[in-house]
């Protein structure tokens, strides 16, 4: 059973968001890393890129699958996790301890459209 973490926001496309002031820290869920298998590559945006809620901002690849990443909130990318460039397996080891990007939110109200841990767990149970 994939784990979740209380106090985070979750998207339908399996990203999590941790809020730190006006910055959203974004990663993929344990459920997502589990479904992908051994990750071999994380395609990340560049700092200063504009991302829009619901739009693609990158991708994760395993040996025989690829999945796009969708921004859970809109804003400007302020940091990407460069550690993942050489060690995508960190997401397999602990999906919640390893974030992908940090976004300066342009519309924090968008967070309200995301799920909490319980709602996300319920959604995954149906997949």
């Amino acid at each position, binding site marked *: 059973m994939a784990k979740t973490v209380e106090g985070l926001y979750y998207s339908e496309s399996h990203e999590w968001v941790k809020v730190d002031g006006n910055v959203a820290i974004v990663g993929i869920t344990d459920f997502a890393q589990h479904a992908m298998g051994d990750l*071999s*590559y994380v*395609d990340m945006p560049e700092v200063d*890129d504009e991302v829009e809620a619901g739009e693609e901002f990158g991708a994760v*690849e*395993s*040996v*025989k*699958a*690829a999945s*796009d990443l969708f921004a859970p909130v809109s804003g400007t990318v302020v940091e990407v996790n460069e550690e993942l460039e050489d060690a995508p397996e960190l997401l397999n080891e602990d999906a919640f301890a390893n974030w992908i990007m940090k976004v300066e939110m342009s519309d924090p109200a968008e967070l309200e459209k995301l799920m909490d841990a319980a709602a996300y767990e319920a959604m995954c149970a149906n997949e």
Partner: protein
Amino acid sequence: MAFAYFPHTEDDVRQMLDRIGVGTLEDLYSDVPKDVIYREEYDLPDAMSEHEVRQYFEELAEQNIPLFCLCGLGAYDHYSPAVIPHIISRSEYLTAYTPYQPEVSQGTLRYIFEYQSMITGLTGMDCTNASMYDGATAAAEAMMMAMASTKKKTRVLLSEGLLPQVVKVVQTYAKFNGVELGFIPCQDGVTSYGAMLTELAAGDVAGVLVPGINKYGIIEDLTGFADAVHAQKGLLMVYSDPSSLAVIKTPGEWGADIVCGDSQSLGVPLCYGGPYVGFLACRKEHVRKLPGRIVGATKDVDGKRAYVLTLQAREQHIRREKATSNICSNQSLMALYVTVYMSLMGPSGLREVNELSYGGAHYLHDRLLETGLFEKAFDKPFLKEFTLKSLVPVEALQDALQMIGVFGAVEVEPGLVNFCVTEKVSKENIDAVVSYLLNENGTSLRGAERRGNLLKEE
């Protein structure tokens, strides 16, 4: 009468139908609407035996006129060592499927790894795929790769010095793929650096595709090109002849990001245009956008060195509608062809091929000018092919050459003709052509009578 490719005896068919539980072969098509079953006779010839097929193709072949080749323009008559056809016709290579089961495909996987090592060495790039269809489609894929690798760019620039068939294929892909193209004209026979700067200034350029050796045969001096393109966050792409890269400055040295072209020049027979073998190579930061199959080294569970198709998440069968390329089958056996060629030649052999082609081409160039039938079109360095301005009607010139069994003087632009010399051409061959043209000079070139094949193949 039994047919060689169908092993089924009547009894076999009977037993198999019984196991399936149907009465006749036609019953196996019971789910097909009756009105789409084709019942008429097929409009095909009667079945032939091997002997008859051979005779038939020999008759067809007589309708071809073999010519001594002094033409380049994207297909080069380099010699193909005898070893190669023997190796590539080994059925373990020839009749194998794509190496999706690496445990029984190490032969294919390993030659692709060797091919990748050699092509990256020639081009000065970090990565290449297992091959593309041909040079022109490789250029189209390079264009799409540049679009996928850059952000918020809408246009790709093509040099007008590229071979016309390459430009047309790139234009076709661009039209349907939704890429806007711009063109950089040539000045004095080379891609205009100034015109490129003007186009780049718009800031919307994803990539610029220029030839290493252009359609006039001129070796382009790409000084400053990479810096100018990179300054606008675009990619420099070079269309190259891999044979020439054994000696001329590599796209890697020029600062290119992507290199494409046709490896036909590495000893692949002319074969009326195919099968050839395109290549596409790039710097490692772009490998995730590189289309097609790629082989990587790894080890098996016992720790043995082994090779496998890798980075497959890029590929069409996984990305489906998100794919930026649809290539799957490529020209794998031809990649083996050129791998064996490069192994035989080595760095010194490939240098000699270029040295002999260079020397012969310059000899022909100078002797043709002496005939008074031509004048220089450009005064720029060339390798094995060159362009002259014809002072006589081009068609007459071509006809005259054909009279002595020579194919050359193909028109690149009105009045400008191409000649190409490879290591297969001797001084005697060239002297024979030139003295024939000198003799024809007084009379009209048109109306020359067929003199048979003055030049025998070596």
